[in-house]
């Protein structure tokens, strides 16, 4: 009879506690691995908030700040770009496409983005995924609007609904542009990016709703009807930022330098990827805290393993004494105990892995649809394997404590076994 079989049979004899211990380890391993998955998934989703855009151009600002207001719509621009500068940049030979972004208005707490239909063609996220219309079509008429998936869901908007844009960005605050309502012509599919939480109108529409405004308020007594606005020159004076795609990636740095050293006004051009990772390093503290918490869960489960083994030791004194009387050395008994805890930890780790994939398969579509969090179902990476390995090794190490006690006790018990 092999030692392994002896360990297995002994374990089988205590299968209820063993199974509970295995379950405990499996669940904590699942928790840890899924937190890791979520973490890397979130990081990747974040890093892929915007892609395909080579440069983001705005008024002179820090790169994180520019990224925050142009892509995440957090905070405000300190300054705008004049339309002339925008045109100048757009006219450069390196530029493949350029999409303007004009901010400053809101709709029931959601930012209104003045842009062109090109935004829906050129905005990319998650490597190379384009925006898709879940319903309706792109901007066509001056008072058309396209809304993000979150906006549509939270406010229960359908294509054809009429909405009113407010001046300013406070929630529900600011005076309304209620004389010039917009018609929802399209609803974007969920992306899990800030795109979902915005209302898109044409650049001209931003001008149109402000023709009878000056500064921060409506000009007293001036009320220009929609019909007349349509015939006015609606070329914007400024835009807030611009997304730029270049013909060749090689020219990126040269073009960035050109923008940063632009003579007419102080501008900043940022590489979205670099700015995103800078921003992530700020958010990374929370990420590490999450890791630490889930690591503690694993440690707790391993402590539970030690506790279970120590508790089972009492009922196993007989077994130890019989084995010692029949030639098992203390080392053999230690090996038996560490093998047992190792087996439990291994079973727990593998079961945890199974749970993880079951969860992933079950929840992945939901996470993608509800939160725009895309988790790849792929083979465990090196990091996952390392963690599993550590759990098994720690499980075996956890067996050392009971093994040492068993050794001491088998010496003290000697030949006389009290049950």
């Amino acid at each position, binding site marked *: *009879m*092999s*030692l392994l079989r*002896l360990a297995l*049979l*002994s374990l*089988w*004899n205590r299968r209820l506690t063993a199974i509970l211990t295995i379950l405990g380890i499996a669940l904590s391993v699942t928790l840890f691995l899924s937190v890791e998955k979520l973490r890397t998934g979130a990081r990747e989703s974040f890093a892929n908030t915007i892609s395909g855009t080579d440069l983001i151009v705005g008024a002179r600002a820090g790169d994180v700040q520019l990224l925050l207001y142009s892509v995440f719509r957090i905070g405000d621009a300190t300054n705008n770009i004049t339309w002339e500068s925008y045109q100048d940049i757009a006219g450069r030979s390196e530029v493949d496409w350029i999409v303007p972004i004009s901010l400053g208005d809101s709709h029931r707490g959601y930012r209104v983005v003045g842009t062109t239909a090109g935004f829906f063609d050129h905005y990319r996220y998650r490597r190379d995924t384009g925006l898709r219309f879940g319903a309706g079509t792109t901007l066509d008429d001056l008072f058309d609007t396209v809304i993000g998936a979150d906006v549509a869901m939270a406010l229960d908007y359908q294509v054809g609904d009429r909405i009113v844009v407010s001046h300013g960005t406070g929630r529900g605050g600011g005076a309304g542009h209620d004389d010039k309502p917009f018609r929802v012509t399209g609803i974007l599919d969920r992306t899990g990016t800030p795109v979902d939480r915005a209302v898109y109108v044409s650049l001209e529409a931003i001008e149109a709703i402000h023709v009878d405004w000056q500064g921060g308020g409506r000009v007293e007594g001036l009320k220009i009807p929609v019909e007349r606005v349509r015939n006015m020159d609606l070329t914007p004076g400024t835009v807030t930022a611009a997304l730029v795609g270049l013909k060749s990636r090689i020219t990126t740095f040269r073009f960035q330098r050109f923008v940063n050293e632009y003579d007419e006004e102080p501008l900043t051009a940022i590489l979205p990827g670099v700015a995103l990772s800078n921003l992530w390093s700020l958010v990374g503290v929370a990420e590490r805290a999450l890791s630490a918490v889930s690591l503690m869960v694993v440690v707790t489960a391993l402590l539970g393993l030690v506790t279970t083994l120590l508790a089972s030791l009492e009922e196993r004194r*007989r*077994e130890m*004494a*019989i*084995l*010692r*009387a*029949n*030639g*098992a*050395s*203390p*080392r*053999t008994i230690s090996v038996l105990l560490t093998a047992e805890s190792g087996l439990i930890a291994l079973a727990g780790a593998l079961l945890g892995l199974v749970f993880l994939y079951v969860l992933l398969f079950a929840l992945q579509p939901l996470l993608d649809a509800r939160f725009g969090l895309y988790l790849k179902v792929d083979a465990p990476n090196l990091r996952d394997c390392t963690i599993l390995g550590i759990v098994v090794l720690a499980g075996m190490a956890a067996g050392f404590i009971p093994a040492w006690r068993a050794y001491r006790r088998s*010496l003290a018990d*000697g*030949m*006389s*076994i009290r*049950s």
Partner: protein
Amino acid sequence: MRATLIGIRRFSGLSDPAPSLSIRDAAFSWEGGFGIEIADFDLKARERVLLLGPSGGGKSTFLNLVAGITTPSRGRIDVLGTDIARLRGARVDRFRVDSFGIIFQMFNLMPWLSALDNVLVPLRFSRLRRRRAGDARAEASRLLGALGIDAALFNQRAGTLSVGQQQRVAAARALIGGPGIILADEPTSALDRANARAFLDLLLAEQETAQAALLMVSHDETLADAFDRVVRLDDIARVSGGVAA
């Protein structure tokens, strides 16, 4: 009757072979101060000795010393020609299973193993006994049969057997692979009188077949007639209660 049997020497050509077990002036003390001193004790080859002593009178310590589970602070304990007190670590464990078949008072078996697997346990740790046993399962079955275990019970979990059956399985385990000495620590105390006698008779018959020496510790003097010699622990050992020896 036993004396004549002991007269038949089978090992080598010596007329008086080395004793299976020989203790000379050995002493041991626990940390608490409980100590034992054994002046002289011999167990001849194939001899049956009943060691009588009250419970808690140092019998366990005596057996632990003999089996090499505890190491004496002085003196010699020769087992089959080897000073067990000089062996260290895993070697003493190996030597123990090579030399001794051990039967406890009760709880001898691992209840989740079958009767047969319980008998086979010493062979896992003793190459010597494995070799001597030959076809291990056949030998285990033979011993179990000889000790009156029904073949239908061989593959039953030991925990489901009666106490009497369990003791006989333990005896088979002690005997398998022909260890030189059988140590039995009150093996009959958990059995009723009739069962105790039956168990002893079966054990003695197999011990004779295996040509092993038997050292049985008991407080039951009525078993004395089955042994070659009865030794009182008081006569060979001095137990001190308070002061470390």
